[in-house]
């Protein structure tokens, strides 16, 4: 395949700060030559995948700059499928910048952000989904995000999509064979069989799309608002949920309303907890205002924890909050389990809802509450090939829409070349996830399935 990427790129691959080690990376056909122009070792040469200890020096003066370990990865067995060199030296910004400068003088070009991954993509080493996963991996803030991104980087989505796509390609090939090789001894699929195969393909994609419910929150996080009248222990539950969880740096985008909020991770999912604590004046009018403002905050939350005090009877204020939560997704939390329970269960309108009975004071039931937070997203059912990216979700949705249109065409007795239009639309969407299946591949499928050739 002809390619436009002919030059050699270089960049510092570790953050520019003082650290024990820093890495400079080169990729392209001149990487080895450039590395050897500023690195000397007793071995004198660089062999594929053999780390070599030696000195980095300034070619014009011969002055040694640093000691380094240099590893050469010969094409195509490298991340970019090009000749690639990693120079591992001391992590001083001065050294790193100096060595990079020498590499540029020797003929390398400064890499643009993400260009190593771009090359890996252009050379077919990784598909687009994997490239996106590498970005997610680098930007991950929780170990769970790392796990999911790591799976995607090694092709977990492709692995799930590919078998479904193969079914689709096989169906396209059979329908095409019926059209293009009508003169040959080609068996044509019965309409019922086509419909059954279409349903199988749809069934393969539906769970993948459904996994986005969880996948979305893996990267984007979840905002949870705590609702409840004063003194039910909202702040205690808030603090109990925060306990032992390492706070993370980046804020999840959210409101700047008059609520106390804290960002944390629960079960590896970034979570923004919003507490309406502080709005608790005894004055009736202000109380009302507090509830209104709390409700506004709640409107922005993905989930609501409705907290009641189990040690006290049900109040009118509880009922009013509950009324306002009608139609929202909320989790009922009965707090103060450590005290004698006085609440009237009948007034809670539990129905099919999950109820978490906790004691924020003793910590009893808090772990169950953490798990219950994500239960409806299916977090506990594993995460292999989870769809976390909205682009991927839209592609799968697009494929499903096209498949459903083709089912309609089939039912309406449209000719196969019309049904195929939608099948190609579905294929195009899946191509964007797994790399392209071309007309040549479809023809190849036909010729290996049927003995064509009048």
């Amino acid at each position, binding site marked *: 395949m002809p390619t436009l990427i002919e030059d050699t790129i270089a960049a510092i691959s570790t953050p520019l700060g003082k650290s024990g080690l820093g890495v400079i990376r080169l990729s392209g056909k001149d990487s080895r030559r450039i590395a050897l122009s500023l690195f000397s070792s007793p071995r004198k040469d660089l062999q594929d995948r053999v780390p070599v200890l030696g000195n980095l020096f300034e070619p014009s003066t011969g002055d040694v700059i640093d000691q380094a370990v240099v590893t050469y990865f010969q094409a195509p067995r490298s991340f970019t499928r090009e000749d690639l060199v990693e120079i591992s030296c001391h992590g001083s910004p001065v050294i790193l910048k100096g060595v990079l400068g020498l590499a540029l003088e020797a003929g390398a070009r400064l890499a643009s952000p993400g260009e190593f991954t771009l090359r890996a993509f252009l050379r077919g080493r990784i598909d687009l989904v994997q490239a996106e996963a590498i970005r997610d991996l680098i930007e991950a803030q929780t170990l769970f995000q790392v796990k999911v991104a790591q799976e995607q980087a090694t092709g977990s989505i492709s692995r799930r999509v590919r078998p479904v796509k193969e079914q689709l390609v096989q169906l396209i090939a059979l329908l095409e064979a019926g*059209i293009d090789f009508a*003169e040959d001894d080609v068996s044509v699929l019965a309409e019922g069989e086509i419909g059954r195969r279409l349903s199988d393909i749809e069934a393969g994609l539906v769970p993948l799309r459904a996994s986005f419910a969880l996948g979305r929150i893996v990267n984007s996080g979840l905002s949870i608002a705590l609702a409840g009248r004063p003194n039910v222990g909202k702040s205690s539950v808030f603090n109990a949920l925060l306990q032992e969880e390492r706070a993370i740096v980046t804020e999840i985008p959210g409101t700047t309303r008059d609520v106390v909020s804290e960002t944390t991770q629960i079960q590896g999912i970034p979570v923004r907890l919003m507490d309406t604590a502080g709005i608790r004046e005894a004055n009736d009018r202000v109380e009302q205002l507090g509830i209104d403002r709390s409700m506004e905050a709640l409107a922005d939350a993905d989930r609501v924890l409705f907290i009641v005090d189990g040690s006290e009877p049900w109040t009118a204020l509880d009922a009013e909050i509950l009324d306002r939560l009608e139609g929202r997704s909320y989790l009922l939390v009965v707090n103060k389990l450590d005290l004698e329970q006085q609440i009237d269960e009948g007034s809670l309108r539990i129905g099919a809802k999950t109820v978490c009975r906790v004691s924020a004071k003793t910590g009893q039931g808090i772990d169950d509450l953490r798990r219950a937070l994500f239960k409806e997203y299916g977090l506990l059912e594993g995460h292999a090939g989870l769809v976390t990216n909205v682009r991927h979700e839209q592609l799968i949705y697009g494929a499903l829409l096209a498949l459903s249109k083709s089912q309609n065409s089939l039912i309406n007795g449209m000719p196969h070349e019309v049904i195929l239009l939608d099948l190609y639309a579905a294929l195009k969407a899946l191509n964007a996830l797994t790399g392209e299946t071309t007309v040549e591949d479809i023809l190849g499928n036909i010729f290996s399935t049927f*003995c064509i*050739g009048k």
Partner: protein
Amino acid sequence: MAADFNEVYDVVVIGAGHAGCEAALAAARMGMSTALYTMNADLIAQMSCNPAIGGIAKGHIVREIDGLGGVMGQVIDRVGIQFRLLNSSRGPAVWSPRAQADKQGYRVEMRRVLERQSGLRIKQAEVVAILREAGRVTGLELRDGRRVRAHAVILTTGTFLNGLIHIGENRYSAGRSGETPSIPLAESVKSTGFEWGRMKTGTPPRLDGRTIDFGSLEEQKGDARPTPFSFETVAITQPQVSCFITYTNETAHQIIRDNMNRSPLYSGQIQGIGPRYCPSFEDKVVKFPDKVRHQLFLEPEGLTTNEIYVNGLSTSMPADVQMRLVHAIPGLENAEVIRPGYAIEYDFVQPTELHPTLETKRVEGLYHAGQINGTTGYEEAACQGLIAGINAALKAQGKPAFVLERDQAYIGILIDDLVTKGTNEPYRMFTSRAEFRLHLRIDNADQRLTPLGRQIGLVSETAFNRYRAKQERLERLMSHLNQVRVQVEAGKISAAQALKRPEIKIEAFLESAPDELREQLSWEESKAVETSIK
């Protein structure tokens, strides 16, 4: 400088096969002084393989050639001896005409068309070199040393460039069976620096029809109402004949397996790449071991010969194995083989060396068309010849290039695929290659292309007037259908609206059309209106 040359033309075409004939005619009709060079003037437009034109996607191409002002459609309509509209049970987008040809009749008729064309000369000679100067073509050199000057040269070498025939262990240089290859010309082409490769194709044995037991075989008749290729054709008048179908069997397959060591395909003797969709019978047996029988079509080669083409039995096995193979097949037990099948390897130039006008990037004024570009098929070759001829003429006239897009014609798809992707196996057209398949139909090929053909000066005024008259008929029928009201469950709607329903056909409303319109409209024209409504 002109003194160095014996003759001078605007356009010279090398090779008088299906690409060469269209190229030469197009250039001459566009006013170029044109010469068509062939090694044997008796074999112009020879159908070297199967005696048929058209088929799915290929029939579309012939319609497009016709719409643009090419001749293949008219010629086959005059000499076709069995017409069938393929895929007629499917939607109109994939209907495609196919016809068995009287092979000799096709040659004779094409030569007649060429000879009647003013400004076109037919020349028998072997071209040994393409002359060029500073990256531009200047002419060509003939075997006897004469030099011909040309503004443009169109190279259509078919299987002749370094052609090498294989039959069993035997191999010999040839352009086709019994014809000399082009060896010096191949050297001349390579010296240009083109990226080139080898391809392979094959043909089946031909039998004496008097020795075939047709009575025991399944007959395949042509359509009762033949669908012509050309928009100009009024009626198919020549006699029509049948083909016959038989099947191979285990005995035949075992003969192949037992003699595999003598197959040049499997011994490594053949290096070129053959087409996957037209495999040799050896390949069929090896690659589909579970298939207990393979279908064969027995196709007559003409009205004045008994020769029968065994479609589906392409082979390069030794002649003695071919005889045993043929005799193992039902109906062919006593068949005489007139000519054994053979495989042929030949040079092609990667079509990525070409502009979309089919002019080479390395040599200005040099065009390649047909099998030299890695394609297979008469129709694929013819349409490339047409485009090369048109562009050679346009360039000489200083006019803009003529390039068809993928949504305009199969021809556009074919050339775009070739020049952008190149090919490693003989390229054939399939409807599945068309992204806009529902639009690229046989019924609208003239609407898509005839105005363009007129614009570039290839379609004559007379032909264009006929096209316009037809369009008027279609419009009149359309407005008639819009006016006529019909009763349906929901009330009265127009006939045109009613026709949108799949179960309603145009025939239901033709009765009500004015008599003179109904008499002028052909069946296909009224069907075209139905299709455009649906």
